[in-house]
């Protein structure tokens, strides 16, 4: 807007208004973050009158204007005198986008959804605005819909002060800050329809520049995206929070068990830093929650995600590989693709770098053991299934707690005793894990979580004790630890 200082129309109208009285006119500068205007007004006028002038000059409604002077908000009933507003002084103006009058415009600005090529990754968020715009309006606080409010500023599409990306980011922020809105959006049949179309989802994800960056760094992710089964499962996950929770719970449980294995912690850490972290950070910016967290670099959820609690019996880890049920086809697929990238080097699915052939010497003399190892390395899913068996877990835990037992396993002569064979098999596995991971049996939590602690302190969580507690409680899961820390932060 061009700067007008006391142009004739303004002066005339003022004169007309104050025709009866001969008041002194003062020139007050009204400043917004973007704009500055000089407004001439009678020094005796009230704030309401002042706002009237301002609303004309700034083309905004009076109830959208918030005036600030000297650190105080000017209320309509006050006078300029009250606040000692004199000639030449500056008043700050904020034009609020009031929530109520943007509902209708929100539905009309649903047009952005049609053009999915412009900003495909934002489409699922934007397309819901026409449907969810009216519903949350009455129940949600105003600031939520100020995101919608910016939509109203887009006359047509993508024009106006708020560019598309900004507005879309704002939408997402609103989404993240308000979980009910997210679930409402998810329940929306339109969204569900779209999400059940894997091609569309894939395209949307791929064209997002952040995801592209991520994919460059981690080719496994692009493999994952190319697998339609996987995509479908992901979308199911994202759609159904209960299912998601179940999956997360399984993953967490399995991961924490893995930690108790010597060397397992290092493997976990590797897995996390290589795969999960960039996904998390990219996905968090994008989605608010992380629908891929369970899939990127998932090691151990060998249990089929279901909408209700899983009541199926867990698979028999010692059964022949052909008959092990392909439950976790989704996660299995992801880990299979990662194996192709990793070979026997530590990768997400094969974190401990199990090289079956290398284990032939000495301890693993028995051909049965060897073939088992080979099968494991070729079919990572088998390993998953193995590790997820309940008795396996307890065995591992007890073995981890009893280092003597583990060290006994290294004695080759002990393998001849058939009654102990099964147990020793486990010990040998443990040895192998230890050999592959290179960890020690006695690690303090602080050492174990050293890397996480560094990350947390880099993020600004300076209370090391609290960080450590949170990490211990969440078993090294940085993001859960952050949630804990934020939830309990007093300041």
């Amino acid at each position, binding site marked *: 807007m061009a700067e007008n200082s006391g142009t004739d129309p303004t002066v005339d109208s003022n004169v007309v208004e104050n025709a009866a009285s001969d008041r002194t006119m003062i020139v007050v500068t009204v400043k917004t973050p973007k704009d500055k205007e000089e407004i001439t007004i009678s020094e005796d006028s009230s704030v309401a009158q002042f706002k009237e002038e301002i609303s004309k000059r700034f083309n905004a409604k009076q109830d959208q204007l918030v005036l*600030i*002077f000297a*650190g105080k908000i000017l209320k309509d009933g006050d006078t300029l005198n009250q606040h000692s507003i004199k000639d030449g002084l*500056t008043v700050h103006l904020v034009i609020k986008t009031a929530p109520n009058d943007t509902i209708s415009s929100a539905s009309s600005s649903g047009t952005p959804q049609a053009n999915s090529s412009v900003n495909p990754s934002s489409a699922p968020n934007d397309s819901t605005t026409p449907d969810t715009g009216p519903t949350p309006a009455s129940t949600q*606080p105003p600031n939520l819909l*100020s995101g919608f409010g910016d939509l109203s500023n887009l006359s047509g599409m993508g024009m106006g002060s708020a560019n598309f990306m900004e507005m879309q980011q704002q939408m997402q922020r609103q989404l993240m800050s308000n979980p009910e809105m997210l679930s409402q959006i998810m329940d929306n049949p339109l969204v569900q329809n779209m999400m059940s179309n894997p091609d569309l989802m894939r395209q949307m994800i791929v064209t997002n520049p952040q995801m592209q960056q991520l994919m460059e760094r981690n080719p496994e992710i692009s493999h994952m995206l190319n697998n339609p089964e996987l995509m479908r499962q992901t979308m199911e996950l994202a759609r159904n929070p209960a299912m998601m929770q179940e999956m997360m719970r399984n993953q967490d449980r399995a991961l924490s068990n893995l930690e108790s294995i010597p060397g397992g912690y290092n493997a976990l850490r590797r897995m996390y830093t290589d795969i999960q972290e960039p996904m998390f950070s990219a996905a968090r910016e994008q989605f608010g929650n992380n629908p891929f967290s369970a899939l990127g670099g998932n090691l151990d959820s060998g249990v089929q995600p279901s909408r209700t609690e899983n009541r199926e019996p867990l698979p028999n880890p010692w059964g022949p590989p052909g008959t092990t049920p392909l439950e976790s086809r989704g996660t299995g697929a992801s880990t299979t693709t990662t194996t192709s990238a990793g070979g026997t080097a530590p990768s997400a699915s094969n974190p401990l770098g199990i090289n079956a052939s290398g284990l032939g010497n000495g301890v693993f003399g028995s051909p049965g053991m060897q073939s088992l190892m080979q099968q494991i390395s070729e079919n990572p899913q088998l390993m998953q299934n193995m590790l997820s068996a309940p008795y396996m877990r307890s065995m591992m835990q007890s073995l981890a707690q009893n280092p003597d037992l583990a060290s006994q396993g290294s004695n080759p002569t002990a393998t001849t005793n058939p009654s102990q064979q099964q147990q020793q098999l486990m010990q040998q596995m443990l040895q192998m894990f230890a050999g592959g991971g290179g960890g020690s049996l006695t690690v303090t939590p602080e050492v174990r979580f050293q890397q996480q602690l560094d990350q947390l302190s880099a993020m600004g969580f300076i209370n090391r004790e609290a960080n450590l507690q949170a990490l211990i409680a969440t078993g090294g899961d940085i993001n859960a630890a952050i949630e804990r820390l934020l939830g309990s932060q007093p*300041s």
Partner: protein
Amino acid sequence: MVTCALPLLSDKMAVAAGSGCLRPGVGTEIILPGVKVPRNFRLLEELEEGQKGVGDGTVSWGLEDDEDMTLTRWRGMIIGPPRTIYENRMYSLKVECGPRYPEAPPFVRFVTKINLNGVHNSNGVVDTRAVSALAKWQNSYSIRVVLQELRRLMMCKENMKLPQPPEGQIYTN
């Protein structure tokens, strides 16, 4: 307003006061090395800057009570930065400039409820250690600097997405 009933401690101070004080425009201080501008001069200057809207218009400050001769209690306002969760909100603060200001940093507390790292959840008091302008206070800093720093904190990654209480709530204690 406070008149020059303040003792002028030295000739140098007189120079500073006479030439630097109360002149309209940005950057009114003439900073002579080794000279300590008296507290009230500083505060009057800040008062004027607040009234003239010095700065980018995203923060505002002024005396809480115009009759306050000691220039101790101030009110500040921060406009929530765009593209953060604080956007479109106005945060009211109380700033208290003690007797040792500007050698000592002011006490700052939020009146409007906010969820921000470094601000106590219960009473809105800003933790001096969490805000670098307060922790490493210099006497050339001002209320504006503190408010702008708080606003910058709102734009930090670790703060910009923190869930906020409903708009309009204030701390009662």
